[in-house]
């Protein structure tokens, strides 16, 4: 919402400066977004008078002028055709910045003759596009500041423009008068009465208006009147300037009048060219399928239930949103039918949204205009039209009734202190509300018709506090809920999330935060991409579906980094993935990827390509950091985006999956344009069983004084035997004695023959009662060989 200072002063009698007004507006909740004050850049220009102008000795078009200034007589070279003796001019003396040419004036020589300043055109001062000559003022004293002269003689030229952001609850401030009322309530001036006497009609309007029953809520009231014999054309200067200053294009006087009241009083109006209206006007709801060529020159096809105004030939206007081109006024219009109606905010909002029309009228009707001012609107506009365009007004035709908006709430003057924490005297509170237009009746505050937002007692407190200024609010300590040391507040899962994140970073992974939505193709690659997780209005096709997994986002990040020349990557993300489109269909995941080599090429030869076991190591470390049990099953039942032979599902049974690690399927990498191989993992922190009860004491440490014994075994097994099965079998040979079984070698092929491999294990035995004798050890050895043979078909390697 933009307005000029002079427009504000049309409603507010104030001596406050522009900056005072701006600060106050922001403090009142009418946040100032910009103040443009032309006077600021014109402050240094002063008036002078040309005493003599003679031809430059070396240039035909230049003149050497002698100019009287406040600092005495000066010589100035000027090229303007109108530079001549006796005229009063605007001077930029040396040192003055001239905005229109972006130059600070210096003393200089022009074609060999010295010049001490410049006489300016309007364009050079950014006052207009006028540049045919220098400014000639009809009055003014030598040495007078040009700004002061403009203020006295042509204030519109330097009228400051203020732009404010209006929150949706304040439709009243979408009119300059509403803004003025707030400032007056704060004490920054007094509101000027701007009423007008009704214009008596001299004839009956030939155009009648009816409202269909079904449209009574959509348009409760409609005022109209015909004005005949008007002379449309360009608006008077003051009106054109007012509109231009706030960024509106003057169109023709009749249209400009409607725009003026839209901004002056938040009262949108409409004008029909009466000659183009066939028969009477009827307000009704659209049936659907009607078409209207609107004033924005676009044709709209209407859905059922939109508020429209029709004549005998069909729809002529979209109520509260935009008029139709066919019945619009033109320069030639002589008989105009003026409309002031009230359109329901909700229906206006829905209609505007579905037709995608953003107009000043829609903006205001959907926030709510002052219903009581509907008849005043028509009188004010009639008066302005008659004053400037002549003509004769008919009697006012009225359909429907002004909707009932009367309501009152109790002002509890204690509540302000209780809710806000500010002590404001009861009398001040009442006076504040009255200044805003509330009518006090005992404790009851009757809400003014222009404040549809005030719907309860809390709103009264808000008004009182707002006008009193929240800037004055003093902070007051919020007491602790428990005295003493604060209690921990994180849940077990929140702590687990933090542990996972910090551990991943400790393992050398860089944390990423990628978008929760990805493109359909990437989503489909990872089992997503269904309609349920699709956005109805994505910002681009790259962000159309909620991510089913974290890996696609990380892989796309890897591709971007590779394109920038970074090839060794360790990236992770902790965040939610979505299995559907219902609230709660989201799961917390931790995923990481390793790409390229373990590090740059180095003098120690330590750098090598990352592999599956790197991912496994990290996945297990992370699971452990997040509280997973040490023993997990490893299944090969992972999804299709993993390398079929190179992944493992870490689980506590087939249905209790805690994580997956492995190599990403090369086809996935190709589709996402990632140079592989890439290994990675995904972990579901919520799936890790929570400890039953937090106990801080540890179980007692059992330390044996007896020597542990280690024995190595090598088995020949089929190639597809899982090492873990062999280890588990060996460990099962004597659960009490065997403390640990480790695989320390794998050898494939060679003399073993096709399809065979050798696995070597170290078995560590920890006796608890007596030192192990050789025959005890041998007995365990036999059992190990037997168990392993049974479980895997393996035999001791000869």
């Amino acid at each position: 919402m933009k307005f000029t200072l002079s427009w504000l002063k049309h409603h507010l009698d104030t001596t406050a400066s522009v900056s005072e007004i701006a600060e106050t507006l922001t403090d009142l909740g009418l946040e100032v977004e910009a103040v443009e004050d032309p006077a600021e850049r014109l402050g240094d220009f002063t008036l002078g008078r040309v005493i003599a102008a003679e031809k430059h000795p070396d240039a035909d078009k230049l003149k050497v002028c002698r100019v009287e200034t406040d600092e005495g007589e000066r010589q100035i070279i000027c090229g303007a055709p109108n530079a001549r003796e006796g005229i009063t001019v605007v001077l930029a003396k040396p040192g003055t910045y001239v905005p229109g040419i972006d130059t600070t004036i210096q003393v200089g020589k022009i074609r060999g003759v010295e010049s001490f300043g410049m006489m300016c055109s309007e364009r050079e001062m950014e006052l207009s596009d006028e540049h045919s000559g220098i400014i000639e003022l009809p009055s003014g004293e030598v040495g007078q500041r040009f700004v002061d002269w403009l203020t006295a003689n042509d204030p519109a030229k330097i009228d400051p423009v203020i732009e404010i952001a209006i929150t949706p609850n304040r439709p009243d401030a979408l009119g300059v008068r509403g803004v003025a009322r707030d400032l007056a309530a704060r004490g920054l001036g007094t509101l000027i009465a701007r009423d007008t006497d009704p214009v008596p009609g001299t004839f009956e309007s030939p155009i009648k208006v009816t409202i269909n029953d079904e449209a009574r809520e959509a348009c409760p009231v409609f005022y109209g009147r015909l004005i005949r014999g008007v002379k449309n054309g360009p608006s008077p200067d003051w009106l054109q300037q007012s509109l231009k200053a706030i960024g509106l294009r003057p169109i023709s006087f009749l249209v400009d009048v409607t725009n003026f009241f839209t901004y002056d009083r938040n009262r949108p109006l409409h004008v029909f060219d009466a000659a183009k209206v066939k028969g009477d006007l009827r307000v009704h709801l659209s049936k659907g399928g009607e078409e209207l060529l609107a004033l924005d020159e676009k044709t709209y096809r209407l859905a059922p239930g939109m508020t429209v105004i029709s004549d005998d030939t069909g729809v002529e206007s979209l109520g509260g949103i935009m008029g139709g081109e066919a019945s619009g006024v033109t320069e030639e219009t002589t008989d105009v039918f003026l409309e002031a109606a009230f359109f329901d905010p909700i229906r206006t909002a829905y209609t505007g949204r579905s037709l995608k029309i953003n107009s000043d009228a829609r903006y205001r009707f959907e926030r709510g205009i002052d219903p009581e001012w509907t008849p005043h609107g028509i009188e004010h506009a009639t008066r302005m039209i008659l004053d400037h365009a002549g003509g004769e007004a008919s009697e006012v035709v009225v359909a429907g009734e002004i909707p009932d908006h009367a309501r009152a709430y109790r002002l509890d003057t204690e509540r302000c202190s209780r809710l806000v924490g500010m002590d404001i005297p009861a009398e001040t509170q009442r006076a504040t509300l009255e200044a805003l237009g509330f009518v006090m009746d005992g404790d009851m505050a009757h809400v003014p018709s222009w404040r549809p937002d005030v719907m309860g007692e809390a709103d009264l407190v808000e008004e009182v506090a707002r006008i009193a200024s929240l800037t004055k609010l003093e902070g007051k300590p919020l007491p602790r809920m428990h005295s003493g040391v604060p209690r921990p507040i994180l849940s077990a899962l929140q702590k687990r999330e933090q542990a996972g994140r910090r551990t991943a970073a400790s393992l050398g992974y860089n944390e990423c935060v990628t978008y929760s939505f990805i493109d359909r193709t990437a989503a489909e690659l990872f089992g997503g991409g269904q309609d349920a997780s699709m956005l109805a209005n994505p910002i681009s096709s790259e962000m159309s579906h909620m991510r089913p997994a974290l890996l696609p986002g990380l892989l796309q990040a890897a591709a971007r980094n590779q394109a920038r020349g970074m090839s060794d990557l360790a990236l992770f993300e902790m965040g939610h993935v979505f299995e559907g489109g219902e609230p709660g269909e989201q799961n917390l995941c931790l995923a990481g990827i390793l790409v390229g080599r373990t590090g740059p090429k180095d003098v120690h030869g330590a750098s090598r390509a990352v592999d599956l076991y790197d991912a496994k190591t990290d996945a297990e470390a992370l699971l452990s950091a997040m509280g997973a049990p040490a023993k997990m099953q490893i299944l090969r039942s992972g999804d299709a985006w993993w390398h079929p032979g190179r992944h493992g599902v870490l689980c506590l049974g087939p249905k209790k999956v805690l994580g997956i690690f492995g190599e990403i399927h090369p086809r996935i990498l190709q589709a996402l344009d990632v140079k592989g191989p890439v290994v990675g993992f995904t972990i579901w922190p919520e799936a890790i069983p929570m400890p039953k009860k937090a106990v801080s004491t540890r179980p007692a440490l059992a330390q044996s004084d007896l020597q542990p014994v280690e024995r190595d075994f090598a088995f020949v097994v089929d190639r597809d035997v899982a090492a873990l099965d062999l280890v588990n079998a060996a460990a099962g040979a004597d659960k009490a004695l065997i403390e640990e079984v480790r695989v320390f070698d794998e050898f494939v092929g060679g003399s073993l023959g096709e399809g065979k491999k050798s696995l070597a294990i170290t078995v560590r035995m920890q006796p608890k009662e007596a030192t192990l004798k050789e025959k005890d050890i041998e007995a365990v050895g036999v059992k190990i060989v037997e168990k392993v043979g049974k479980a895997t078909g393996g035999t001791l390697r000869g």
Partner: protein
Amino acid sequence: MDDLRDKYIQAIAGAEDEAALEALRLEAVGKKGEISLKMRELGKMSAEERQVAGPKLNALKDEINAALAAKKAALGDAALDARLREEWLDVTLPGRPMRTGSIHPISQVTEELTAIFADMGFSVAEGPQIDTDWYNFDALNIPGHHPARAEMDTFYMHRDEGDNRPPHVLRTHTSPVQIRHMEKYGAPCRIIAPGRVYRADYDQTHTPMFHQVEGLAIDRDISMANLKWVLEEFFAAFFEVDGIKTRFRASHFPFTEPSAEVDIQCSWEDGQLKIGEGDGWLEVLGSGMVHPKVLQAAGVDPSEWQGFAFGMGIDRIAMLKYGIPDLRAFFDSDLRWLKHYGFSSLGVPTLHGGLSA
């Protein structure tokens, strides 16, 4: 006897290596060594002679053994010194490369603000990112036609033909967590709810996803003055500037009443923004007293309970605190950015250790 002694002591001193020393040992005190032979001769001596020669020979043997041991140690030391001289390495060569991971600024700042609010008794609540329009709008006093809905650039989820429920939304703010929390736990309560939020807007300063933290404190007598204190304490702790000033400006949000936008003190010098000094103001959050209708929607009796709520951009305060220029880069995962603006894995922010120390 003295000759013998001198001969061996000199020879031992002159031995060049352990082999020469061993040869000398055999020659002197070996089974058939000169001194051993002499000791054998003692038996043939008279008692008087033996009494003189015996101790002398024994002393000589001890002396030579000691000299041999000392020389052996000396030779060993010299050999070690020589070996160590050979084992010189260029210590300026780099060590083995090690990857260094990092924590994203969003996570770090979320932990920072959690630490601060935890001290004031706020716990951390969470909620779904896809939510119903009731939780995201209606319950927060934003009915269907409210202009705020359009202004929020809401992302809607797809609805199948025939499913006539209003479409779910990607939450446009963390405020729905207020409702869900109060529904479940009632009043009194103190929570913050950090998390991802979504708005259909993408330009220099907007991304379609960003992060907010919601704050909610409900009790019998919590006022806006408490809100101001909490925020002032928060900003002082977060920006690590004691006495940082805040400014409350009246504003409007459908879910609070009265509402205020909050600015923090700042200065702009040579294009450099400094928080906590100067006369400038920078808008950082929206806040207010929870609207009675919102309490009602969440099943909390507004005649008994009242309190405040606020919402602020985590990305934004991270940018302000750490001088990160471009919001869009937060979500681009450029390794150079992650390393430059990221945080150490062990740099867990705590109040006792300092948040950003």
